[in-house]
């Protein structure tokens, strides 16, 4: 009631505190125990057993993992997710930087509306993105093909972008770039807008060009957010599933398989639970590895500031 009671109230043991904490933590733990901890234990157990559908299976040690290493579909999947990660970092992030810098540098009336448009494709569900991707790359009637025949470039219209094993991967990658560059754009814009005005004014007084200002002031300041984006990109690539699954089903052949698609095929097409679980564990280990890198990078930077 009054301030004088404060120390006393603190010293007294509160018998209701324990039950309160327990009750408040209970819901989260109920969810996690049933739908996460138990499945994690099961995934690890299954990845060490040989099962097909029914029955509890036989313990086979690391056999599932050893077999995966020589499985061509898995090898292609692994190669594809890291190729995807490499080019996402190399293409999407610089592109996002250029757009973010262009949008913030002049900061006129169009900045806000343009930012909203650039982020629009990012909120599109992957099923819609896949649908539009097929719309663009379809043979004969797709946007590219019909534009090409409209201007008389028959050779360009004759290409089967999603059906060719050389081009399918890059076509899916192109539509992903269309869809997912919006996030790095708004993320970088938010950081750039925090750079103090004085720095910009000082740079302009010194006669620095926009390029010079970008290179000497903005990019050093974006060091940390860009590294975060690189890691997010990599972890996202390791989990890549939706777009190649819906646009090409991993094909033609193994041209667009990813770890996620291999997992799906092993688990829900071949009903090979052991192998599929082993891939699940590998996806977890790889993404954990890169998330840990993100956090160590983050901590270092935190101390510097």
């Amino acid at each position: 009631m009054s301030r004088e009671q404060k120390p006393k109230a603190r010293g007294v043991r509160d018998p209701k505190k324990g039950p309160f904490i327990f009750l408040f933590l209970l819901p989260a733990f109920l969810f996690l125990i049933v739908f996460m901890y138990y499945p994690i234990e099961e995934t690890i157990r299954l990845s060490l057993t040989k099962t097909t559908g029914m029955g509890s299976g036989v313990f086979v040690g690391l056999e599932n993992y050893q077999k995966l290493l020589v499985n061509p579909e898995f090898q292609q999947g692994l190669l594809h997710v890291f190729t995807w990660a490499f080019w996402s970092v190399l293409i999407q992030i610089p592109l996002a930087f250029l757009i973010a810098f262009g949008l913030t540098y002049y900061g006129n009336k169009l900045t806000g509306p343009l930012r909203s448009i650039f982020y629009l494709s990012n909120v599109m569900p992957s099923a819609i993105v896949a649908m539009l991707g097929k719309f663009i790359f379809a043979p004969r009637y797709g946007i590219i093909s019909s534009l090409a025949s409209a201007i008389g470039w028959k050779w360009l219209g004759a290409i089967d972008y999603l059906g060719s094993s050389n081009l399918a991967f890059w076509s899916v990658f192109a539509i992903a770039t269309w869809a997912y560059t919006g996030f790095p754009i708004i993320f970088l814009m938010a950081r750039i807008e925090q750079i103090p005005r004085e720095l910009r004014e000082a740079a302009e007084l010194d006669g620095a060009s926009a390029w010079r200002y970008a290179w000497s002031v903005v990019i050093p300041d974006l060091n940390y957010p860009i590294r975060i984006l690189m890691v997010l990109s990599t972890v996202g690539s390791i989990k890549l599933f939706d777009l190649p699954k819906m646009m090409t089903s991993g094909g033609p052949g193994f041209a667009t398989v990813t770890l996620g698609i291999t997992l799906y095929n092993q688990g829900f097409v071949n009903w090979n639970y052991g192998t599929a679980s082993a891939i699940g564990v590998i996806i977890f280990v790889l993404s954990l590895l890169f998330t840990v890198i993100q956090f160590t990078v983050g901590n270092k930077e935190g101390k510097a500031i």
Partner: protein
Amino acid sequence: MSDRKNRLRYGASEVVVTALLIVLALIVIAPLVIPLLFAFKTQLEFSYHPWALPKALLMSNFSDAWKAIRIDQGLLNTLFVALGAIATTLPPSFFGGYIFARYKSKVTEIAFYCILIGYFVPAQMVLIPLYKFEVATKLNNTLWGLFLVMATFGIPFWTLIYRSFFAGLPNELFEAARIDGASHSKTFFNIMLPLANPATVLALLLVFIGAWSDFLLSLILLTDQNLFTMQLRVNSFLGAYGTDRMPRYASAAVIAALPTIILYIAGHKWIIKGTIAGAVKE
């Protein structure tokens, strides 16, 4: 004089850069607008003049596409899943986040790390056991079975967000309420939770969008076509109908994308703000 010259040059470069950005923005919108040009045409008209404006506004492609996707049923299912995901993600997260921010002890710290682990677990890791578990408990092919899993994978992240939010509130508020004799739960429900409204709005939006867009979990856990969400319906459409009848395909794309576009036009400011806030706290 030189100052004026400078400003003029600045003006020219501003125009060039803005024009470039507008072109890029048009590229972003193009795949969403071009289907409109195709959707109202007959197949014949489309094959001869794909890029001309439609002669008449033919609606039969839309009714065909509507029948093929059954968008009304899809929207209802998706909405139910999204609201269910919100209702089951938020309370466990704000309860947990509150405890971790305000009742720090050895025990709660261990509990916190147990929940933090969940943040690093991708759904793909546990897909097989989740599927087996839901089949065994008959939760598969129910919308409940779907959003409970979505909630599980959202809770660790939102617990983190609520924890940092509650930790940022002034300590005096908390102590004053306790001294006034308010019980633990009263302090939370009457004082602390309303103060967390900004975090709650953020969670509402992003959990909704996440559930709305989900593909992988829905694909694994739902096989009954009546329960299919919008995204599963789009996926079935892609599998069943080719792009040969392009006008119908384009109409389906328009129908499928429209709800998200409307959602975005209505809430883009909040969505962008929320996404940035969520990303920065991550």
